[in-house]
């Protein structure tokens, strides 16, 4: 059922048809804004964004800048499985995998780059990660940059744990490694 909104257009009265008085009223509105803002420019709602960060609501589930989670020894939780790189629609993740001499069950990322200039902040990499190694919960919104290289996040920039976060070492991995060493 289409709802019909009845607009009651009354005919203009003489004062409105003369138009000059209405113009004066309109001008008064804009002039008031002009002078109020001229006298008190601090009252303007504009935020000078990159210099002046926006406070984010504390409990908001936002997709903010990425980070790679760390284990207790500072190594990345990432096992370089390339699932995030495959899932990424913007092709902004670049991973180069390497083998660890001691850890026999996993690879690790020798290079893990996220090009924020390409990233669309969709969060597909977080969804895809089987190790829960990549997260978008830093609370930082990537702003603009003058040089493109500033927007290229490397592994060193990305690796960090949030304060108070327990650094986990996968118990299953430890057991698997011990098992494999015993077989040698």
């Amino acid at each position, binding site marked *: 059922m289409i709802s019909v909104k009845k607009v009651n257009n009354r005919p203009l009265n003489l004062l409105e048809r003369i138009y*000059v008085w209405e113009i004066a009223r*309109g*001008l008064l509105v*804009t*002039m008031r804004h002009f002078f109020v*803002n001229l006298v008190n*420019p601090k009252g303007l709602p*504009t935020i000078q964004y990159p210099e002046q960060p926006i406070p984010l609501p504390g409990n908001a589930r936002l997709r903010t800048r990425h980070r790679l989670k760390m284990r207790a020894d500072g190594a990345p939780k990432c096992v370089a499985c390339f699932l995030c790189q495959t899932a990424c629609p913007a092709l902004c993740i670049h991973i180069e995998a390497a083998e660890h001499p001691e850890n026999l069950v996993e690879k690790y990322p020798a290079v893990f780059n996220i090009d924020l200039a390409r990233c669309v902040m969709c969060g597909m990499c977080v969804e895809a990660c089987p190790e829960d190694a990549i997260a978008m919960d830093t609370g930082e919104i990537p702003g603009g940059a003058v040089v493109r290289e500033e927007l290229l996040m490397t592994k060193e920039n990305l690796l960090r744990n949030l304060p108070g976060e327990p650094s986990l070492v996968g118990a299953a991995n430890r057991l698997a490694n011990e098992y494999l060493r015993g077989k040698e």
Partner: protein
Amino acid sequence: MTDFFYENRDVLLFAGAAAAKLLFFLGAVMGFTGLMTLAERKVSALMQDRIGPNRAAVCGLTLGGLFHPVADAIKMIFKEDFVPGRAEKLLFTLAPLFALVPVLALFAVIPFGDYVLVYGYRVDLLIADLPLGLFFVLALSGLAIYGTFLAGWASKNNFSLLGALRGAAQMISYEVVLGLTLVGLLMIYGTADLQQLVRAQGKLLFGCVPAWGVVCQPFAFVLFLTAAIAENKRGPFDLVEGESEIIGYFMEYSSMRFAAFMFAEFAEIVLVAMLAATLFFGGWQVPYLYDAGFAFPGGGSMPLNHYLVAVLQTGAFAAKTVFFCWFLLVVRWTLPRFRFDQLMKLCWKTVLPLALLNILVTGAVLLALGKL
């Protein structure tokens, strides 16, 4: 050599004074016009609770956006100077000049002060003292139509031509009104010399109110402002080239040719503001300020230095100009745009009869007072 200077003393003095006035006045006008491009964006921003441009910086110094006109100019200069393949090259090049030159020429007849005595030599503070300055204004503003129409015609683009047709129709219509609104002033002050007109506005009515045009002809002032804004193609009448909605006559123009049109438009704002100040708000007159200083109607007086009086009067003219420029910007950013048929209806069916009525009433009053 000395003889040559001595024999041609008057001519040389005149030429020197004219050159100095040109440098001073036209320089001030051009600089102010450049600032108007920034002022338009800043004023509109403040009216809409925004900040406006403030990012252009030299050595990290922004000065509240003061470098934006410079940045605009640099951008315009480095843009591609494009001429459509089918355009008439000569007319296409001439059109921006036709838009710009009449506007700049009109500043010559605007009196920006009374006179100064420099070592006994009297310098009238206007560039060209024409006895028929008012008609010069009307004639040259009629010439500005050529810029609009040539631009649309020479582009060989149907949409440009349609924009030019709209523009020409609008400008010609409102020119009629513009002329008629000023007839009342001519009848009251009895002169078409702008300097004499301003001097006549320095007299007092009833011994206390300055005889400014707006006091004698308040109705004509409203009509004049309407017609002048329409003639200027701005404010609610900017349907000739509404930048983002309606295709206008300079669609095919880029680079500095386009900048010439824009500069002409902003110079016209300054011109309209100056004309409104000169014709209706006493030009350089400060109320109760005369050659010798202030003389208040109550009997009090305050003698002032001749140069101080000249500076005060020129300052008053500048202040009035700035006020009207600001007012035109506020009008432009407040009122919604007219439709073309509304525009024409307003001109021929409302403003023109009212202007004629104004002349009739003015004539009747003057006749009744026995001054005709």
